[in-house]
């Protein structure tokens, strides 16, 4: 797959946190009633995870599911498998009213690593980033500065931020700007 070009070719920045554009991430948007048994089972079969609760995530290795809205989930898998997963999922969804679309190429993903990641995000997103309000197992679908974004934490010092591919450059620049060394707020970490 040497023809695959990431939006920024794998850019990175080291400041209050380390920011890295991740290589291709398989992503499937599922629209449907997330409480529908057929849909829950179809996701279980095709992605091996249960659909998460409100603003939550479910992971099993490289597979995952993120709650996006009461009738939308973002399903994760290895990049190369996304098309096949959509086919498999659509097969399992026969009889249910649902729509599954491969959106892997529509998005860019950034990893934020470091203990200051909470406040880097809190400079850009109107989200309560304190540890008692947000942590691993949760997802937020929101905005960062002027663009739509979603993010979740893999562990206490790792977060992933997703945005549309066309604004990857903007996202990388605002994250890097917010992570400038001398700009620590020291709100969550004193």
């Amino acid at each position, binding site marked *: 797959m040497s023809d*695959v070009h990431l939006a920024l070719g794998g850019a990175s920045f080291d400041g209050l946190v380390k920011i890295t554009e991740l290589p291709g991430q398989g992503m499937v*948007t599922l629209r449907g009633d997330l409480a529908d048994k057929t849909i829950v089972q179809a996701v279980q079969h095709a992605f091996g995870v249960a659909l998460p609760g409100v603003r939550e995530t479910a992971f099993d290795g490289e597979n995952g599911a993120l709650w996006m809205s009461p009738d939308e989930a973002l399903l994760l898998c290895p990049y190369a498998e996304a098309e096949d997963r959509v086919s498999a999922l659509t097969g399992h969804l026969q009889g249910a*009213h649902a729509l599954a*679309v491969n959106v892997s190429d529509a998005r860019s993903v950034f990893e934020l690593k470091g203990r200051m990641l909470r406040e880097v995000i809190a400079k850009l997103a109107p989200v309560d980033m*304190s540890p008692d309000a947000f942590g691993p197992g949760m997802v937020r679908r929101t905005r960062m500065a002027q663009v739509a974004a979603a993010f979740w934490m893999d562990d206490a010092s790792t977060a992933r931020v997703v945005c549309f*591919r*066309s604004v*990857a450059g903007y996202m990388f620049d605002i994250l890097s700007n*917010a992570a400038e060394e001398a700009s620590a707020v020291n*709100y969550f970490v004193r």
Partner: protein
Amino acid sequence: MSTRLPTQGRLINRDRDVAFTFNGTRLTGHDGDTLASALLANGQTLMGRSFKYHRPRGVVASGSEEPNALVNLGEGDTLEPNQRATTTEIFHGLKATSQNHWPSLDYDIGAVNTLLARFLPAGFYYKMFIHPRPFWKYVYEPFIRKSAGLGKAPAAEARDPDRYEHFYAFTDVLVIGGGVAGLQAALSAAQSGAKVLLLEQTPHWGGRTPVDGGTIDGKDAETWIAETVAALDAMPNVTLRSRTVGAGVYDHGYVLGYERLTDHAPEDRGPRHRLWRIRAAQVITATGAIERPLSFAGNDIPGVMLAAAMRDYVVNYAINPGDRTVIVTNNDDAYRTAIALHEAGLKVPAILDARPNGGGALMEEAKALGLTVKTGAAIAKVKGHKAVHSVLVTQQDSDGSETTEIFCDAVAMSGGWSPVVHLWSHCGGKLTWDATQAAFRPDHDKAPTSHDGQPFVIPAGSADGEMNLSAILQNAAKAGQTAATRTGADKSSDAAPTAEAPDEAPLAPVWMMPANAPLKLRAKAWLDYQNDVKVSDVQLAAQEGFESVEHTKRYTTLGMATDQGKLSNINGLATLANALGEDIPQVGTTTFRPPYTPISMGAIAGEARGDIFQPIRKTPMHDWHDANGAHWEPVGHWRRPYAFPRKGESVKDAVNREVLATRNSLGLLDASTLGKIIVKGPDAGRFLDMLYTNMMSTLKPGNCRYGLMCTENGFLADDGVVARIDEDTFLCHTTTGGADRIHAHMEEWLQTEWWDWKVWTVNATEQFAQVAVVGPNARNLLEKLGGMDVSKDALGFMEWKDGDLAGVPARVYRISFSGELSYEIAVPANLGRAFWDKLLEAGKEWDITPYGTEALHIMRAEKGFIMIGDETDGTVIPQDLGLDWAISKKKDDYIGKRAQARSHMTDPDRWKLVGLETLDGSVLKDGAYAIAGGTNANGQTNTEGRVTSTYYSPTLQKGIAMGLVLNGPDRMGEVITFTDGGDDTKTARIVSPVFYDPDGEKQNV
């Protein structure tokens, strides 16, 4: 003249000198000085000139309420006007200049205005300068602009070099104000278990209590403050932020905080200001109180200060404000200043107490120190110009005609204290008049309420009207506990500490000094220093019928300056009430609006500047375009190549070359920005039949159809090609700018009107890179790439197919927006660049030519295809554009159908689309109007049409245009006249809008 005292100065470090300049003069202050205290230490009592009369002004306050001591800070790129010297911490190399004077601060020619004062009364803008009209533009406005106004705006080419940012914080309890009340409220709330954020606008905690004295828990106030700050700092649920103003309180506990990080240390890296965007469940306003000036003649002469401010300068900064200071007061607090001055070794010739019986314990203390107290006394007038020379003393209950003179070089005045109710009031908190203290205080029964109808702001301490130290702490502890309890915290907090401070006798309201001052004195008694509003101005406004306080404010400009009337507000209201013969609470207050003090534009903009001012959307091929000379055009947030001029080639020539190359051989367009919305479900066909004017449910899988979308009012909103993917699934192409809007439009109808229809949508726009391969050699190129059959039989016009091209998974649509043989090919976005490169490489033999949006526009115009945004402008319906063929007659309904049946929509006189050809082959101006005979009722030339698109067609080698013309389609061949800039005109013939290949032979091969 003011000097530095040998003792005192709790906030300065005498071991560290700080050099700065004022109007170019090099001066030295100490670490910890404000610019105001450093200027006073250098004997610089004259700090600025007033707004209207250019009167000499000195500092009158010691905090953010300061109206006079405003300076320009910095220069060039860092110049900032209207900075308060009282809140500016000095740093090495600070450069300040005074404002509003010419040619110099000491000698100001504008001061002649003060001699013209009787021609500049309240409302002078409205009265004097209306007639004659031309005078406004050529005489009055330039004159006023030059003579009035405060600081100078930075130069147009200046660029702020600093960084700014936002920060979103969430907390249970936000405490605004770090005085003893704020500290105690924060402590109580934190002990109760709530998460607390405490903001203080100055660099120091404890407010003015260390200056005012008193003991807390048996300790001196300063010790208690230090211990409490340390205790708070050690609590994991508490965040303390100094140099951070609580600027505004908004709905549902949203509060703006304004943190000044490097103003005092510009050499530090990092952001200069940070805007805190806070969500608090409960807000405690411990914002203190502000001392009021007294209204006597000459109360604005440099050397006249608020009594508490003078005390601050003595105790905090070791300033000797003058060797002989007269105190004038209507309350006990000013006696503290007399005592502080006396203890600093300075002379206090007299304390003038306007109350007939004087004050309480503090007065006795002053008397015991040997100070002279005159009760029932008042200042009739301060004598002096740029400095105080003497005061004329009279009886308060008099007209000031009988006076005795006391020589002095400073005056300390106190008219009582007004609780800072601004933040309580921002979001609707009401006030109640406290006649005993002559002040408005928060009405606890009418607190600002949140989403649940419950109060979310609690005032604390002197901001709540408590003026005794013990009562302040009790009140604050209760506020902290109450706020915490409201957020669900369930621990109990410690009892409030006990405090000791002298009891104070009640004040006597004094709104004019002396009470029966004649006009001559009232016209020199200032209410609003910054906007130069006097007692006589407000009285005149009342006399002229401006009875509402809001009207008086605007007529006189009282309280409308950058200090928002912090000192003048209550005095102005009282003056108005007296003039109207009403009680103060009946007159009421003006509205308190955020921000409490000015905040920088940089903080508001935050990170949004330079490269990240706005997101720029880039297609997967953006970098190629950039590297190949794209002349960019913004389309929404996208950047699209307008054309690809080669070295030495003009943009216009490039456009013409791109059109001809495409028509004659092979062109390539990056069409990735077009919206691609997937619509699926058993009701998808029915849904699209409602969204589009034409029938989509009859489209067969594998086929494409062009469709129009209208608003509910019938106006054309978007267009594009719909492809049916399978029985249940459609892919709707939208315009570049329409993708998000149309997706939202679909979701709105699905979620609010047709919520029971089984349809899902996904905006998949960015999943694909889309490339239009256009021209007679388009098929040859795709066949060379190989992988799928794209022959006429396998993939006919308006059909689509999935397959592989050159090993890249592709969906190929055979659609044409140019009139040529054309394929639009969608590939996964991450493969878009590689696919583009393959096309370029393989297309070399046909001289493959990437083209931009202008060539696209010209080619569609040559074919008579409409463009959303050119032929439409929100007032055009499809019928205007001759698109009746795309409006289904069979359907019962579609969005816009009923609107299009309205009488005005079916009016035969609506302008309709036609083609236009100038008689001389030149190009019409875009937007030009067709001129009809005569003029309308407004004397304007009648029109009968307008140009909607106009280009030079390199294919036809002449100007072509489309336009909307009255009865246009019925007037083929007729010649009409268009405007052509200024009085010039151009004649054009009405023709068919399809200029090129009207039979569609080229695209259907």
